[in-house]
């Protein structure tokens, strides 16, 4: 029997190519293309009075300059609002090039095309733009105060106001024995993948056909957008996501202005065109996330049971809102975490500011929600003098209560309903993994040496695998290779490996014989995209279903050819064989040939196939009504609703008594994403997420000044963790399979980042006794807080 691949830590098939330097990332393509540079606004808010390009015309290598006025009418329309919502009453999106007004530093004003990027940048530098600078709105509270307006016609700066409720929170809080009220702040961060954005277009004038390569998480949607803006038949546009150097959400945004401009100008000039963003551009023109201010009121009983929770928050979505309310809606719902909340009210305002727009970054609103809920639970425990894990325990939904429908609406417009999980079991595993109960001894031992240490934890539930669908195509070639395609694209998740594992198992073929293509509309036209930890769940299951169909087709063909009942056949080692007498068999590749009534004897398998050809019924068509030539199948997976993964993190930190330097001593993760397709890949996803979470907790903040200037738009100043900042992480998996899909899997991509800030805040608070209500926190901020507090407050023994 062939060894089962699904669930095994199979080494990734994409690695050798990437390790030899043979990757094909966006900027590795199109060496002969003209290059684009964009002139971007230096002001957060301004009217454009005049643009003078005279000096730029002298630049050697200049090809063309385009402003808004030079664009055809279709390109002068605002970019799409991708996800409308009834509450989104004042939605604004940007133009591909600014139409007389700019609303954030970095907004695209004009496009220069030149023979190379050096020349294009030379030209940009020589263009003079006259601005009337307008007052900038920076920060969520300033936005809501509405002394100035981002968009003149929206006088409160509010795009949407939304409330969701379960039960009656204000009433439950009023009746509760204890109440607490407090505020939390989360700063801006961003995905910052190591590869910036890029787009490369080739226009074939003879075929009137466009090929677009772009570093996107949603190639089928980019294709549709480009076809629409360029007024081309969909059939004349192909979009390919090549190797992508990380996405983490920012590359799900589409279309970017450059994804429209580059193909348009390629067609205009009849020449290959490429745009590759530099790092500073990425900071000021590619989207950010996270920033929220939250106000929380909670009522609870003596055991710490939450009786009512009332949350209000402002979500800063920046200058435009192309992605709708996805992020704040996720915060609103996923905030609940693993707890049974019967009285909950959440209200948010999504506000405009003169800063880079906000769209999902890994976690997509969940880290903020988790921060709110977990800081709340810790406050309750502190107030009552109870162990923090104990307070979590009394609030958990119990496994027998699942599936549990909260009565809220999730990001996909479907019921917010947890399908699976065992939170008490996860907590027990976590406590063992980090030795929670032994911590007080460790604390005492450390204190005896003058060291300050603390422990904290945080739990989350993550809706993954959101719909509406993904598809998969599986084809057995007459040569024996199995070709697999799915429409969504890959940014390092190892799809090529994981999807090949699924198909190898279904068809009983060698893993090496399965070739997977993702993100190429020439191979698969219908797809949604890679986001919301959905690729493995959605495309994995779609490919599985397609492979099952191919398997059934192979069995039927073999049954006819061998004259054996289907029940007596099995697929293994690249063949269909008779159970119990494996020598009676037929190769899958021969079946692939047999499946096509036209079989010229081009090769051996075609010659072999003829010997099995059943005598044709002269009265029946060679391809029957419900048949198709080829050993192939396409299928789609479309779940009724999302599947919910969950997990818990615990962390031990040490605070330097002199400098308040924060060091992570130990980090433990318990993670439940259902069945694991490939434990190595899942572990990698979790570890990568934790590293980003550590960045968000301790280092990463987009530092805007009052004028809307981003003060730290480089890796020199915006600190993402190096190896020295990321702790060793220990992981334990609990596998409660999802009942919603055939593979029993749940998404894993975002999990690692969600509870990290909350857990680290809890540990710092536990170490120092100082309430942590804002993230990230730097040693200097912590130091000031420690200096400012009364001397009587003890440290190390809170």
């Amino acid at each position, binding site marked *: 029997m062939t060894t089962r691949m699904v669930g095994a830590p199979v080494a990734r098939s994409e690695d050798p190519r990437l390790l030899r330097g043979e990757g094909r990332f966006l900027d590795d393509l199109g060496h002969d293309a003209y290059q684009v540079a964009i002139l971007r606004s230096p002001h957060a808010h301004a009217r454009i009075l005049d643009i003078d390009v005279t000096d730029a015309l002298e630049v050697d290598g200049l*090809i063309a300059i385009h402003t808004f006025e030079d664009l055809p009418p279709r390109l002068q329309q605002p970019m799409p609002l991708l996800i409308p919502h009834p509450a989104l009453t004042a939605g604004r999106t940007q133009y591909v090039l600014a139409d007389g007004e700019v609303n954030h530093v970095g907004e695209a004003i*004009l496009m220069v095309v030149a023979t190379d990027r050096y020349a294009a940048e030379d030209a940009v530098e020589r263009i003079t733009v006259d601005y009337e600078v307008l007052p900038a709105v920076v920060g969520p509270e300033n936005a809501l105060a509405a002394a100035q307006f981002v968009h003149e016609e929206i006088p409160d700066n509010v795009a949407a106001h939304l409330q969701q409720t379960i039960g009656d929170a204000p009433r439950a809080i009023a009746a509760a024995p204890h109440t607490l009220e407090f505020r939390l702040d989360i700063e801006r961060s961003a995905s910052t993948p190591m590869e910036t954005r890029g787009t490369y277009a080739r226009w074939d004038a003879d075929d009137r056909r466009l090929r677009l390569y772009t570093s996107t998480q949603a190639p089928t949607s980019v294709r549709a957008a480009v076809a629409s803006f360029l007024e081309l038949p969909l059939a004349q546009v192909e979009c390919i996501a090549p190797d992508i150097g990380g996405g983490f959400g920012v590359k799900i945004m589409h279309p970017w202005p450059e994804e429209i401009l580059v193909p348009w100008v390629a067609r205009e000039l009849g020449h290959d065109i490429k745009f590759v963003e530099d790092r500073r551009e990425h900071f000021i023109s590619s989207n950010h996330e996270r920033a929220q201010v939250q106000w929380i009121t909670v009522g609870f009983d003596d055991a710490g049971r939450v009786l009512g929770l009332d949350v209000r928050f402002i979500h800063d979505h920046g200058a435009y809102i192309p992605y709708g309310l996805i992020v704040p809606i996720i915060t609103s719902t996923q905030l609940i975490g693993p707890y049974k909340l019967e009285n909950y009210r959440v209200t948010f305002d999504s506000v405009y500011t003169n800063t880079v727009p906000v769209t999902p970054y890994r976690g997509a609103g969940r880290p903020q929600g988790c921060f709110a809920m977990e800081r709340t639970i810790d406050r309750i425990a502190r107030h009552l003098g109870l162990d923090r894990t104990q307070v979590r325990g009394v609030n958990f939904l119990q496994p027998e209560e699942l599936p549990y429908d909260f009565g809220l609406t999730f990001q996909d417009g479907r019921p917010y309903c947890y399908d699976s999980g065992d939170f008490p079991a996860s907590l027990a595993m976590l406590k063992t993994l980090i030795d929670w109960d032994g911590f007080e001894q460790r604390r005492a031992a450390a204190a005896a040496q003058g060291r300050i240490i603390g422990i904290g934890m945080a739990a989350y539930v993550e809706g993954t695998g959101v719909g509406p669908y993904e598809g998969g195509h599986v084809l057995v070639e007459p040569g024996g290779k199995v070709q697999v395609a799915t429409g969504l694209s890959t940014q390092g*998740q190892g799809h090529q490996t994981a999807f090949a594992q699924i198909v190898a198992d279904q068809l009983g073929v060698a893993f090496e014989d399965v070739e997977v293509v993702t993100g190429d509309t020439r191979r698969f036209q219908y797809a949604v995209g890679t986001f919301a930890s959905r690729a493995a769940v959605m495309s994995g299951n779609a490919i599985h279903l397609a492979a099952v169909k191919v398997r059934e087709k192979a069995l039927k063909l073999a049954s006819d050819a061998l004259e054996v009942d289907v029940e007596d056949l099995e697929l293994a080692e690249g063949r269909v064989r008779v159970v119990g007498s494996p020598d009676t068999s037929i190769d899958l590749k021969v079946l692939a040939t047999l499946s096509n009534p036209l079989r010229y004897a081009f090769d051996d398998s075609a010659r072999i196939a003829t010997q099995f050809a059943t005598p044709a019924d002269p009265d029946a068509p060679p391809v029957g009504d419900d048949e198709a030539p080829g050993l192939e199948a396409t299928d789609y997976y479309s779940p009724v609703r999302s599947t919910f993964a969950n997990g818990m993190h615990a962390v031990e930190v040490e605070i330097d008594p002199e400098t308040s330097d924060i060091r992570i001593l130990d980090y433990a993760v318990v993670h439940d994403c259902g069945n694991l397709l490939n434990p190595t890949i899942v572990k990698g996803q979790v570890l*990568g997420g934790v*590293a*980003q979470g550590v960045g968000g907790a301790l280092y990463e903040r987009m530092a805007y000044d009052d004028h809307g200037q981003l003060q730290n738009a480089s890796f020199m100043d915006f600190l993402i963790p*190096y190896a020295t900042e990321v702790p060793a992480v220990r992981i334990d998996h609990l596998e409660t399979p999802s009942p919603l899909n055939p593979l029993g899997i749940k998404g894993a991509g975002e999990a690692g980042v969600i509870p990290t800030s909350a857990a680290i805040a809890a540990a710092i608070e536990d170490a120092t006794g100082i309430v942590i209500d804002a993230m990230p926190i730097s040693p200097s901020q912590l130091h000031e807080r420690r200096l400012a507090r009364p001397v009587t407050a003890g440290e190390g023994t809170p």
Partner: protein
Amino acid sequence: MSTTDHAATATTSPGGTPSGTDVEVVVTVNGVPRSATVPARRLLSDFLRHDLRLTGTHVGCEHGVCGACTVLLDGAPVRSCLAFAVSIHGREITTIEGLAADDGTLHPVQQAFQDEHGLQCGYCTPGFVMSACGFLADEPAPDDQTIREGMSGNLCRCTGYAGILAAVKQAAGALRTTGADPRAKHDPAAGGQR
């Protein structure tokens, strides 16, 4: 607004700008003499990627922080985004393309990255591999902390570094066993195979 006809007069190598300050740069890359005539301001990273079309060297920041562009210059790791191509005239460069054996067999550092899941998207990977080769030449028997510090000049946004650190450790062991120079092209015949 305006379209000029400069395209017709652009005559330099692909990606080149016509200029009076073009310079011929002759270097040895991965043991092979290479040359190209480029503007004086051409970055070494662009020279490798676009003039020599060795696109394995990546660019993540172009300001010397991320390490994605790391190559070996006369055997020592340097950031190719911080050097001008003209400044390395006559010298020797090793890039990621110069490590695997001619038959494609992975170099021990590359193999270790695969074995230890030291890469996800693979964008930072060439820089890490080149840094590791330079590091292991100086530190053939590093302990865990030395590896962590030695690899702390490169950024990875995907992996959380655990797999990378484990890979460097594995590679150190493999290279010590064979005695091969970590910076040399892999030679399976010389007992270089793990």
